[in-house]
């Protein structure tokens, strides 16, 4: 721990002591969740400051019906399904893409939508379906790739659209009102695209502080400090402690691209149901690149595993250790729910960093004691 972080920790303890009551803050983003565990920040927090993980892991919130559609498409003869590697093991109703690949289906791992487009160019006889997952950080890449496919007439390319929007999910959580939240640590790299001001509606409607922070320990501590300071002062505002990277207005070029290629639509979130205006669909002019339309496929329903409590885990209602399957029937090798599959899932982060002393334990990693 650096001196600067130590000083921030001291300040945070002082402020939390002043507030006195329990303060509950949600870190929305899976990358934050992992960073918070990995750096041992949890163990440094005052007892009355509780961090809960939010629905900010795109792998975890991809609806089962979308995985099922991907499985169905990948199973069709000749189809190449291109996906980010994170999605390979997410369980659908009948297995995962990884298992389907083992039976000979053409499931290709790519690290960019453009690689999927290159695959389509290289295999003009094969339909190439790209599994378009991710929040606003990732969606512009899909948008730019669809434009490129349109420009170059790569007609064997299509996208299974699963992109989601972060702010509507945060609003849905507050609207539901069943988890007391004093504020949000907002995702740094989503904010790079949408800009800090995008959280203004949350502040305006729900009067909760939203602080945009980066991923290094010092930035996370700064973010928590800014949040607790607002709580202490009874304020609610959008604050940006990641100004070297995130601007007030975001990346205008990327936002314009999103507006041009996509329309905002209701979207199903795994375990959370349909959240109004929380997803992206292709705009009418680009609809021919929509995989569901191209293959005349309708989405089914989600059917969660009876044991899995991912839905509660990603809304801050339950901790992974409260799930009866945690570290018994469900572990990273044999995941039941998506929160255990994704390296940024809350259950996986708990399994890896927080399992040693059992439920509620806050393990201090080596070198940070």
């Amino acid at each position, binding site marked *: 721990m650096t001196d600067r972080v130590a000083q921030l920790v001291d300040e945070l303890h002082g402020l939390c002591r002043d507030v006195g009551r329990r303060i509950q803050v949600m870190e929305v*983003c*899976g*990358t934050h969740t992992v960073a918070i565990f*990995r750096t041992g920040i949890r163990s440094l927090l005052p007892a009355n400051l509780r961090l809960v993980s939010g629905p*900010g*892991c*795109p*792998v975890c919130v991809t609806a089962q019906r979308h995985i099922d559609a991907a499985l169905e498409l990948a199973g069709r003869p000749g189809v190449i399904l291109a996906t*980010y*590697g*994170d999605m*390979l*093991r997410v369980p659908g109703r009948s297995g995962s893409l990884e298992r389907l690949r083992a039976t000979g289906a053409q499931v290709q*791992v*790519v*690290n*960019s*939508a*453009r*690689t999927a487009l290159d695959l389509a160019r290289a295999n003009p006889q094969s339909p190439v379906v790209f599994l378009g*997952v*991710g*929040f606003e*950080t*990732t969606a*512009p*890449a899909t948008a*730019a790739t669809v434009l490129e496919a349109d420009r170059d007439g790569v007609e064997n390319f299509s996208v299974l659209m699963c992109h989601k929007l972060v702010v509507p999910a945060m609003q849905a959580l507050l609207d539901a009102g069943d988890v007391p939240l004093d504020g949000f640590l907002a*995702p740094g*790299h*989503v904010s*790079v*695209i949408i800009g800090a001001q995008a959280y203004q509606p949350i502040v305006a409607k729900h009067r909760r502080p939203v602080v945009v922070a*980066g*991923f*290094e*320990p010092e930035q996370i501590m700064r973010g928590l400090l800014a949040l607790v300071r607002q709580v202490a002062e009874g304020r609610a505002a959008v604050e940006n402690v990641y100004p*070297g*990277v995130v601007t007030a207005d975001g*990346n205008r*070029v*990327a936002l314009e*691209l999103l507006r041009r290629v996509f329309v905002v639509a209701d979207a199903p979130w795994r375990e959370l149901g349909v959240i109004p205006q929380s997803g992206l669909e292709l705009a009418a002019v680009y609809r021919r690149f929509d995989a569901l339309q191209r293959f005349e496929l309708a989405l089914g329903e989600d059917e969660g595993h009876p044991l899995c409590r991912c839905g509660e885990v990603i809304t801050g209602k339950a901790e992974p250790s409260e799930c009866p399957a945690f570290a018994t029937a469900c*572990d*990273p*090798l044999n995941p039941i729910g998506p929160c255990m*599959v*994704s*390296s*940024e899932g809350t259950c*996986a982060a708990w399994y*890896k960093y927080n399992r040693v002393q059992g439920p509620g334990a806050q393990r201090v*990693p*080596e*070198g940070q004691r």
Partner: protein
Amino acid sequence: MCLAVPGKVIECRGDEAVVDLQGSTLRVSRVLTPEADVGSWVLVHAGFAIAQLDEREALETWDYLRQILATEPADSERETQTTDQAPRGEGSPA
């Protein structure tokens, strides 16, 4: 999955740029950051430069990334193609 990593632009050709990610180079699109030029620092995510950032911020981020890459316990238990391998993992949109 939303993690982006900083890189320095070392070559530009039209919409394409080559960035140096602390030793490994990557071809990325710069359509989202048309102003990025040779010498600029950009955040790279899923094959795209998504923002420009200042050098100090970029180097601090790398200090952190190097630390976690060095201290991360071996991860035999899990899928190899996950975002954990960022910044260089195959298949993660880093």
